[in-house]
């Protein structure tokens, strides 16, 4: 980020614009980059979901718009933008309009917190993992607002279900995060990645000692994202569309965008915690083999790290979509019971196990 | 048909070729057919209403799961008033609402009689022979 800042100030001074202007407007630049990335990734993810679901049910996904259906999401986006913004009678206008924004903004912030490579991190806090978890809960408030202000009984039921579900599934995530923090001795996401650095790449990754924690966290992530088998709030066959029944046009597009952006960033989070983040699968970086004499080797390594992070996240997203295609929906009662009576004790057990492992491996030091 | 001697001993009914015609004590006959172990007609298959122009014939089709026999009990209702058997067979409720809707027969002792198929504000009872449809040009004529 520092390079970007200095480059920006330099660029402005070439045109005799004062430094103060540059200081004030600098935050817009990463914002534009994140927004561009989100749009690109969501484009790919929506199409990928439909194609993958088609793959699992022996059909082709969308394949008419563009070669292999690549432009399908663009067509969907244009369609949504051209729809009328319906004003629901009896709804609280301010809350109704603000709710989609409140769902989307925390997700954008999350995109800024995760480290894409050693140098490409938009915001590097010293406790970024904890900050990540706390911001990831904010969309819940927005969902409840959306459901309540729609003046629709179905939306209200969907919103309250969603709130209860997300809150119940936060706690196991905290315990698993604690055990990862014990393993890496830090709560900074970049440090967690570097603590998985090992000369035998895969063996250093945290999913080997902490496999139970990975499974627990995977299930909780599915619940956070309101995805099958936890998609009660959007149960299409029961509540029509749950908390976003009354939304149309751009506001619906924001909910949609937020869901898929959240999907990518949560799976990136999982990859960072358990699968070595942006570290390569091979023993050395591929760039080191190809570009070993170039003076830009470091830059190539940074871009390659981004590539590894995206590759691993997409593999995990593929598994999440596989789960969606296979399993039916859980009922409300077993959802709550599963979280409080099964996942929470297991995550505590996992924490104790990790502490014991770390104690033994670390030679008596924690 | 099955052996109707026990029924004839107790009630005064006419036995036709394939149905039993009851004139009075209708509910008692139905209860007798349901509760007697030799008959035990425990399933009400359906209630058919036929509009013979001066009266309406209600045919109750009963089935016995033990003897696997079908039985038809027929009752002629004049003046569009009949007795409800909801207390004997719970499944008669929808059928009686439908017959009220389509033929105009009011069933006593059925406290929630309402139209089933037609809207609540419809006037007339469609299945009666006196209710003419406008499909004369589609109807079959010799």
């Amino acid at each position, binding site marked *: 980020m520092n390079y970007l800042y200095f480059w920006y100030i330099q660029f402005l001074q070439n045109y005799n614009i004062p430094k103060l202007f540059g200081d004030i407007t600098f935050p817009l630049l990463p914002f534009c980059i994140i927004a561009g990335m989100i749009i690109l990734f969501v484009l790919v993810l929506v199409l990928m979901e439909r194609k993958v*679901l088609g793959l*699992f*049910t*022996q*059909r082709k996904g969308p394949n008419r718009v563009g070669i292999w259906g690549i432009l399908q999401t663009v067509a969907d986006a244009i369609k949504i933008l051209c729809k009328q913004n319906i004003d629901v009678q009896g709804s609280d206008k301010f809350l109704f309009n603000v709710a989609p924004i409140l769902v989307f903004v925390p997700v954008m912030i999350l995109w800024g917190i995760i480290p894409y490579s050693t140098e490409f991190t938009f915001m590097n806090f010293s406790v970024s993992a904890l900050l990540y978890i706390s911001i990831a809960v904010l969309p819940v408030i927005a969902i409840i607002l959306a459901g309540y202000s729609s003046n629709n*009984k179905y939306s209200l*039921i969907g919103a309250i279900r969603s709130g209860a579900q997300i809150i119940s599934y936060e706690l196991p995530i905290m315990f698993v995060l604690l055990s990862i923090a014990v393993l890496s001795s830090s709560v900074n996401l970049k440090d967690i990645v570097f603590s998985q650095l090992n000369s035998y790449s895969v063996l250093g990754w945290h999913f080997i000692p902490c496999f139970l924690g990975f499974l627990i966290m995977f299930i909780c992530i599915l619940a956070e994202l309101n995805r*099958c*088998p936890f*998609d*009660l709030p959007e*149960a*299409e*066959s*029961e509540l*029509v569309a749950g908390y976003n029944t009354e939304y149309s046009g751009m506001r619906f597009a924001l909910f949609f965008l937020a869901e898929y952006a959240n999907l990518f960033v949560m799976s990136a989070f999982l990859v960072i915690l358990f699968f070595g983040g942006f570290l390569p699968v091979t023993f050395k970086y591929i760039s080191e083999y190809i570009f070993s004499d170039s003076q830009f080797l470091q830059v190539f390594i940074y871009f390659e790290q981004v590539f590894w992070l995206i590759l691993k996240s997409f593999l995990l997203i593929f598994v999440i979509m596989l789960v969606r*295609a*296979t*399993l*039916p*929906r*859980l*009922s*409300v*009662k*077993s959802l709550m019971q599963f979280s409080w009576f099964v996942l929470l004790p297991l995550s505590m057990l996992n924490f104790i196990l990790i502490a014991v492992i770390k104690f033994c491996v670390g030679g008596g030091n924690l | 048909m099955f052996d109707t001697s026990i029924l004839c001993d107790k009630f005064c009914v006419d036995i036709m070729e*394939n149905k039993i015609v009851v004139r009075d004590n209708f509910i008692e006959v139905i209860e007798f057919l349901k509760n007697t172990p030799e008959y035990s007609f*425990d*399933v*009400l*298959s*359906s209630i*058919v209403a*036929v*509009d013979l122009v001066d009266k309406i014939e209600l*045919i109750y*089709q009963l089935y016995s*799961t033990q003897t*696997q026999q*079908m039985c038809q009990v027929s009752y002629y209702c004049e003046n569009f008033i009949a007795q409800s058997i909801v207390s004997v*067979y*719970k*499944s008669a*409720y*929808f059928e009686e609402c439908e017959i009220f809707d*389509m033929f105009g027969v009011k069933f006593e002792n059925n406290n929630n009689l309402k*139209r*089933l*198929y*037609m809207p609540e504000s419809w006037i007339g009872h*469609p*299945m009666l*022979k006196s209710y003419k*449809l406008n*499909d*004369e040009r*589609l*109807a*079959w004529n*010799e």
Partner: protein
Amino acid sequence: MSNIMKINIGPQHPSTHGVLRLITELDGEEIISIEPVVGYLHRGLEKLAENRSYLQYLPMVDRIDYLGGFFTSYAYCNCVEHLLNCVVPKRAEYIRVLCMELNRIASHLLWLGTFMLDLGASSPLFYCFRDREIILSLFEELTGQRMMYNYFVFGGVRFDVTNEWLNKVSDFIVKFPQCISDYEKIITKNPIFTDRTVNKGILSKNVALQYSVTGPNLRASGMDLDFRKSNPYSVYDKLDFVPAVNHLCDSYGRYLVRIAEMKSSVDIVKQVVRYLKENNGDISANIKAINLKVQEGEYTSYVESSRGLLCCYLRADGSGKPYRVKWRTGSYYAVQVLPQIAKNVNYNDLIAIFGSLDVIMPEVDK
């Protein structure tokens, strides 16, 4: 101030399997009472019969239950043939049984797909439709139509079956049991599925008999009543099959009964195909159906359709038009029993229970 919320489910709703309106009173998420309102699909099929000749009414009969066109056709043709005292040739009866059993398999496959879709799993729908597609193309080759067949005539069937068609049926029947066991692998022991269907929607034998429920719903409550065995019609007394019964009384039991019914239909089809390949004969008694006049009389024919007992009452008065036609269908009584079995359950269990009853609205509304 009471907590009771009155919600109107339907008539337009993705999962009420047709146009059914349920006025439910909810206390939180628990159901206190349900009142079904039917009649949105009333087409007056019984009144239409009184102004049509016997032959003109025959194609209309398929549309009473669109998933079981052969069952209703058979019931109507059987009534007319009985009143005409005509004997249907053996080969025609066997062809009729073959068509009815394939129709039963197709109807249960569609039920299974939509039931899993109601529960949230979207993949089994496509697998079931893939198999249903094969059956529908077999029917298209035989009768010219995929759904409203118009194939049975008074006295027999319209076209003869060829040996090539019978070979295609055999190929399908040989591969089909493997498909059913594939579906069972991902559904029957799935803990989420059993959690949502076991002990939900308990329909005891007494309640079922009081409400005149027949078919798979009754057989899942422990009552061994299959009209093909107890009051055999057509050539069912010469065929060897085992009706599916179990004592579970819940949605899971109804699911198991329908899966077992598909397997026993496979046995019946094998026997019928063997008979048809070995024996030849007439396919129709050559009754002149135009200007057909039926002597005075009345008759009730009954058929075990895929939803229960299907009865057709026909009264003829010597002219060319029926005097009265009345249909008794299985779904009519399943809708009546719904308020009894869905008391004090959660709202999202209601959809699962209603799906397990296999209700088709055109059958209820005629």
